[in-house]
């Protein structure tokens, strides 16, 4: 067993274990923290796959940005120590069965397919490549999605301000 394998199993186990905890924990703040672990482990996987920039983005944006946002909103809307009322057992069982079935099905498909998983090149794309890719509008260029995303982000910013703003009339 190589070191990379061990690291991989470690990350995988972390991801799955904390995912489960995220969706089952009855304390919301803890759930958010578990989510953070999941996201960080995912970033670890990206590192393993040699996408360093992506891993960095994952860490800053996801783990740093979104989770913090979520925690803020939790603090705004709930008590920290608040426990949820337990979810209906029927709902849990049915969902679990369906999800297990789905997971098994998918995994079987994956195993049966037999991917050609040989990797010849394992280079890490440089920031240069990524920057050119984002601003290039020729082949392998992503200028348009980049612009779209920019506008989307702008719109989302406005939207969240407008939505979350206090309505003067009602108060």
């Amino acid at each position, binding site marked *: 067993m190589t070191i990379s394998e061990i690291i991989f199993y470690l990350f995988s186990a972390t991801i799955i274990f904390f995912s489960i905890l995220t969706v089952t924990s009855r304390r919301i703040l803890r759930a958010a923290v578990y989510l953070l672990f999941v996201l960080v482990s995912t970033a670890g996987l990206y590192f393993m796959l040699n996408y360093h920039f992506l891993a960095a983005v994952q860490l800053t944006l996801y783990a740093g940005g979104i989770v913090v946002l979520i925690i803020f909103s939790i603090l705004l809307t709930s008590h920290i120590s608040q426990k949820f009322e337990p979810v209906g057992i029927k709902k849990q069982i049915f969902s679990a069965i*369906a999800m297990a*079935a*789905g997971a098994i*099905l998918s995994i079987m498909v994956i195993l049966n397919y037999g991917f050609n998983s040989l990797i010849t090149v394992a280079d890490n794309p440089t920031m240069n490549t990524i920057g050119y890719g984002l601003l290039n509008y020729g082949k392998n260029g992503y200028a348009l999605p980049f612009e779209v995303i920019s506008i989307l982000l702008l719109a989302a910013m406005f939207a969240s301000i407008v939505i979350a703003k206090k309505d003067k009339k009602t108060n």
Partner: protein
Amino acid sequence: MDFSFTVWIPLLPLILFVFLGLTSGSIRPKISGYIGTAGMTITTLMSYFVAYQYFFNRPAGSETFEKIIAFNTVWLNLTEKLQINLGVLLDPISVMMLVVITTVSLMVHIYSIGYMNGEKGYSRFFSFLSLFSFSMLGLVVATNIFQMYICWELVGVSSYLLISFYYERPTAVAAGKKAFIVTRFADLGFLIGILLLSFVSGTFDFVSLTDPQGALITQGSSLTFMGLSVMTWALVLIFMGGAGKSAMFPLHIWLPDAMEGPTPVSALIHAATMVVAGVYLVARLFPLYVFAAPDALTIVGYVGGITSLFAAVIACTQNDIKRVLAFSTMSQIGYMMLALGVSGYGDHHGLGFMASMFHLFTHAMFKALLFLAAGAIIHAVHSNFMTEMGGLRKYLPITHITFLIACLTIAGIPPFSGFFSKDEILTAAWEHDKFLFFIEYAVAGLTAFYMFRLYFNVFWGKDRHYHHTPHESPLVMTGPLMFLAAASMFTGFIPFSSLVTSDSKPFESHIEWMIAIPSILIGVIGILVAMWFYKKENGISEKMAGGLKHLYKWSYNKFYMDEVYLFVTKKIIFNNISRPAAWFDRHVVDGTMNGIASVTNRTSSGIKGFQSGQLQKYGFVFVSGVIILVFTFIYIWFN
């Protein structure tokens, strides 16, 4: 001779009806009475003219009275062969009926001017009278059986309207309703009979239906149904219609109640004209009855005989003078039916037919007279009950005399007209059916008895104290009485056998004294018994009633026929058919529909459960659906 003007005989009253009906309320009631009477006078004169022309001014050399279609127009085409015409058919019986109807109607019009004076709805009364006259005249001149049916219904409605004339009196309303519904029921038989007849014969037309050489009669009908030929069925059913209108047993129950109407109406409709429509109907189809369905004719005769006896027995115990007269009418119409039943066709065989028509004629006169006189009495005393009358001969001399004449006429005492017509009937019955003959003897005695019971009770007996002294009616009322009394006295001498016969050929008839004398004797005995019982108040009648207690009670209650009908209609039809039908509709049929609706509702609310609006449920269903589909596609579909 061109008879086409005869179309105005029925049309004139129709115009009067429309005119009086529309102007009712806007012209003075008195005026409308005069207009109605004037119109009726013209109609009457026209009828007399027609009768004179038809009977006494016929084309030289003709042996028989031809059927003349004076007017005919298509009213409605039904099939290629069947069409309903409206027209005027003149033959001896229709011309005779024209005379009878117009005469009585005119007398009633004149009489009503006085009788109805001051009543509310005076002009309405006259417009209804005109409507009735129109329908009745249309009925007798009908060229085809469907026209007759049309007028038949109209007659029924005018009868309904006139019986319920005093519409604020619940009894009058109920009586009108009863009369209409009972006759309507009978008319259903008539209608089905017409349908059957037209189905077999392919025509409605009287001329071709009653042609003795016609295909229908000579070939007869080969179709049979339940052992009787279809012709017999048809004619029996048609007779059912006639029996309803003519108040034959057991469809008679409406007639006594119909006396709730104003008395002139009873005289016109329920004594002289409408109630003989049944007789006229049978007479009109007489050749068919004789040749195609003798069984039906026998039924006619027996129904007539039973009714005449039945009604005479009841008449002996009634106290309402109009009801006595009503039962007497039934009895006399029974006579006419019986006469038709015992008649053959042609020459002397057709004596019964002739006698029946003769009796119809004389009966119309004397029965109208009786009713109008009864009206004068009621007018004077303000009561219908003979128990509240007595000794009226001093106060009402003219009424008294005319009433007496009528009583003698109906009792069959010579030389009054009733004697002649009744004698012909008896002769005919003797020749055909001895059983019916003896029934008629009994009825003759009973008739004399109950009529004179009435007479003595009203005009003799104890002199009562009246609230205000009864006085004789004005001339407009006594005039018609006197005219009709004269008619009752002298119409017996009309040589009917040379005018109105079954085959329209004159024949000789004479009085059979061997039959007449016993009948006179029976009549006289009846009169004497009545005189003994009722001339002075002496209690014999009460003793008699006590002795025949059950018979008396049954007769007094009209043999409980009303109760039987009430039971059938109210208990059986109303409660056991109609109420369940309504219930069934509400609960079963509608319930099923509502049930379907509620099932739909429940299903939809079940489906609505999926549509909970909860994203997670949708998500669950969606994801499981996808999983199942993927599974299906990958592992089942493609393997």
